[in-house]
């Protein structure tokens, strides 16, 4: 499944379109940045409530396919600006992280 396929699903809102043709390889839920750096496999869709520019930096460096802000968590303006500059995909959903991850898992299997 590509990021654009997920973006079209019900309940997902596009915050920033980077490379929407990026393939999603799995889902990973966590809000601690170093934990994500160390554990999230490359290509993961990352479900978090951490909408700051450091999260964007982690997504770039750990090769995350898309940041998904769960439960409509806020993303600040500097983070959006950095995501635009670095081509990082960001989506937002009102669903909790677990439900979103489950949905992604179902789409992938």
């Amino acid at each position: 499944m590509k990021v654009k396929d997920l973006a079209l699903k019900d309940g997902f809102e596009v915050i920033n379109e980077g490379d929407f043709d990026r393939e999603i390889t799995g889902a990973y839920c966590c809000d601690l940045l170093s934990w994500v750096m160390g554990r999230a496999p490359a290509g993961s869709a990352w479900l978090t409530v951490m909408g700051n520019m450091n999260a964007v930096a982690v997504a770039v460096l750990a090769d995350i396919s898309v940041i998904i802000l769960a439960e409509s968590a806020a993303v600040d303006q500097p983070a959006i600006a950095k995501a635009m500059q670095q081509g990082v995909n960001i989506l937002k959903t009102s669903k909790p992280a677990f439900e979103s991850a489950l949905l992604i898992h179902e789409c992938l299997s």
Partner: protein
Amino acid sequence: MSASVLQLHYDVPGDDFTRAGEASSAIKNKLKQMGIAPDVIRNVAIATYEGEINMVIHANGGTIDVTIDADAISLVLKDTGAGIPDVELAMREGYTTAKEEIRALGFGAGMGLPNMKKYTDEFELKSEVGQGTEVNMKVYLKK
């Protein structure tokens, strides 16, 4: 092989979370341009970013020197910060001294140094209290 050696130098500004990650991103882009394998780039990116964040949080900045030769990417991270009193404790997953406001940003998981060790093939940390910290890491290009 001296002709193929490439050296890069970056200054990491202290206490500026808005710029944290800039050096690591620049290194990542440079390695991409050179056609280095994606898994090697990812390992280097994770190790440098964790180091960069540590320098911003704990040491008021520092420097990153990258040397790329035919066999490996060598990383030297230096700061003149407070130093680490107990390196063995600092290397333990989950141990952190980051303040509450830093933790609110999503940092301070106590995974920085362990991640640097995990994602590199060689890792050496020298630290002296009151003098600073130096981390030497290598990621092999040929396994």
